[in-house]
């Protein structure tokens, strides 16, 4: 007896087909499959993609459960079409020991809306002084493979080199938040024409690019993998293209907001647009779109960063950095990449599911929708358009930069190992 029969969904790059889900896997793909005993979901006009995988999520638990919890954050993820997320280490306490990553992993299992893979801190307390016990986190029940001090740059070149080398023992990966700290002291927004006008301290592109260049060279020198978080400038794209051209094992991600929004939005002084790295110029946005399309940037990652109202309803310079991303990511990518003809749905599946799952090395995610594959998938209505309503979000926080904005596509259903987490656009 089958669990679900999805009728007539368009597969990326293929014809409409039926998918029969059984026992947590895709049992069969074909036309006019027998739905006897199965719950049938009519998916005419919908696109089926492998469940989305986010390499960069802030779930805020433990520590800031007023802004987000693993339960609320994974509900938001499921509504956004995600079946796996990577929870960043900058919690309180920091995820720099096995105990904390195991707690996050266990809470994710209990929530059940998507897989939660904890990211471990590179250095103790994210302080950039001393390596955290990376091996203990790798060997823990959470099986951590990605390590990042996200929010902080691993600035010390020796520490970065050692981290890149050390994690090779267990197939780990260092994900760097590239930000030269001295060049960005007090920085509030992209440094350029707009910051000059607004009198806000600038965050120059060179502060990101110089660190990416150094880290690519370090990774090449020690023969390690490097992953670059939230690439935001045209110059960074050039450096990545050069490093990849050398055959170095460098991967990179871009956020949805850096694909759509520009630093002109800071002119409102509304901190909902304050994010790190900052929104850049229209030229940077174009370069990032091109880089995602040609594969120089491997993946889209949300950098979903929930913040309590009081941390955003302030003066710009007093506000926290970060914006929500999980529930709008697919729509923003559709707007920036699909509507502009830069990616088709197969390309979206690659950049939002296949590649991130490969980078993270997680089995069971990011696989082609074919018989035998785990039944992690999302059904998308490509013709729908939705106006973003902050109060309707599943996240505990409301800091979406898209409030009131109409965006394309809608997630109709999400399946995690054959079980629906979202049906009819609502939590199942």
């Amino acid at each position, binding site marked *: 007896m089958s669990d679900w029969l999805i009728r007539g969904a368009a597969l990326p790059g293929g014809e409409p087909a039926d998918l029969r889900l059984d026992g947590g896997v895709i049992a069969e793909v074909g036309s006019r499959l027998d739905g006897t005993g199965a719950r049938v979901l009519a998916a005419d006009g919908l696109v089926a993609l492998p469940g989305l995988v986010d390499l960069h999520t802030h779930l805020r638990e433990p520590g800031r459960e007023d802004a987000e919890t693993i339960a609320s954050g994974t509900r938001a993820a499921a509504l956004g079409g995600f079946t796996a997320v990577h929870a960043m280490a900058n919690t309180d306490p920091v995820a720099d020991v096995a105990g904390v990553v195991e707690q996050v992993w266990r809470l994710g299992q209990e929530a059940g809306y998507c897989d939660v893979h904890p990211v471990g801190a590179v250095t103790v307390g994210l302080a950039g002084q001393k390596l955290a016990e990376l091996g203990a986190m790798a060997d823990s029940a959470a099986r951590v493979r990605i390590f990042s001090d996200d929010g902080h740059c691993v600035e010390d070149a020796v520490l970065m080199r050692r981290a890149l080398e050390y994690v090779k023992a267990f197939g780990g990966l260092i994900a760097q938040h590239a930000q030269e700290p001295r060049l960005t002291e007090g920085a509030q927004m992209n440094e350029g024409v707009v910051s000059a*006008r607004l009198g806000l301290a600038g965050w120059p592109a060179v502060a990101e690019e110089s660190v990416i260049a150094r880290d690519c060279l370090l990774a090449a020198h020690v023969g390690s993998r490097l992953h670059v978080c939230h690439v935001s400038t045209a110059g960074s794209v050039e450096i990545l293209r050069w490093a990849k051209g050398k055959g170095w094992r460098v991967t990179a991600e871009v956020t949805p907001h850096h694909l759509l929004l520009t630093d002109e939005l800071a002119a409102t002084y509304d901190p909902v647009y304050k994010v790190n790295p900052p929104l850049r110029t229209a030229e940077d946005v174009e370069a990032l779109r091109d880089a995602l399309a040609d594969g120089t940037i491997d993946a889209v990652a949300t950098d979903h960063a929930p913040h309590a109202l009081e941390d955003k309803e302030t003066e710009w310079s007093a506000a926290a950095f970060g914006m929500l991303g999980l529930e709008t990511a697919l729509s923003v990518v559709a707007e920036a990449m699909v509507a502009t003809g830069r990616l088709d749905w197969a390309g979206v599946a690659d950049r939002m599911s296949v590649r991130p799952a490969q980078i993270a090395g997680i089995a069971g995610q990011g696989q082609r929708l074919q018989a035998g594959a785990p039944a992690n998938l999302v059904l998308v209505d490509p013709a729908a358009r939705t106006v973003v309503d902050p109060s309707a979000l599943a996240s505990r926080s409301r800091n979406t930069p898209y409030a009131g904005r109409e965006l394309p596509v809608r997630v109709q259903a999400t399946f995690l190992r054959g079980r629906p987490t979202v049906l009819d656009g609502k939590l199942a």
Partner: protein
Amino acid sequence: MRRHLLSAADLGRDDALLVLDTAEQLARVADRPIKKLPTLRGRTVVNLFFEDSTRTRTSFEVAAKRLSADVINFSAKGSSVSKGESLKDTALTLEAMGADAVVIRHWASGAPHRLATWISGSVVNAGDGTHEHPTQALLDAFTMRRRLGRLEGLRVAIVGDVLHSRVARSNVLLLDTLGAAVTLVAPPTLFPVGVDDWPAEVSYDLDGVLPKSDVVMMLRVQRERMSAAFFPSAREYSRRYGLDAARMALLPEDAIVMHPGPMNRGMEIAAEVADSVRSTIVEQVANGVSVRMAVLYLLLGGALSGAALSGAVVEAEPGAPE
């Protein structure tokens, strides 16, 4: 005019000239024995100061009182603000008290813009972070026009810490609107990246600019800047970009010297320059009151367009019906 004055860019040419002309009329009040008009009787103006600035706060206070407004001084020190109350809560408190206008000085760029989203009264930016100080630019333009008789075509050099200066930003915008030609002069470290986009010339050479300037405006340079490597020492700054008597002699005969205050005598400006006949520094203070009266009058008095400004301002006597 709009409901708020947040940036000098809020003022079109007609609006800016209306403020200056209104200030000219209101300035005559200062020459009377009783320096008070009933125009804003019953209206409440709050001075909300998150930074110490006795001169600006006093200037606004005198301006509001000369228009008979009730003035409340709400300073960050000794109020709930110093106990960690947010700007939003402060705004809601002022709103509940019925503030018709809030004059705000704040350390954060854009704080007046945020305030304007939370209250229904008018917001006047009295200096926000390193962003703008529009009433300073208005009083500077007023002072130039009084001394030199025009603004159109005037050559104005603004010298000093442009990067961190709200006075420079507002002056560049307003003077461009009014047809003056601005040249900014500073060491390259004290210009913002992106300054090329401003409607102004940029120069690193003060001695080259001075002979072609009708106005030279010296900006305050904080000594702390040298610890962040913006320049090597106060002495070197003073030598290259300070205005001393010898440099002042390079100016055309009728040129004036301005400074928004407070001055660092001996740093960006020599004492004999500050006290010379070319200096307008004391006039600027007096003119500040007139200009701020005009701004409050135009924002609160109901005369929101040029046509609506009648001769009533000049004719109004203390106690006369509005």
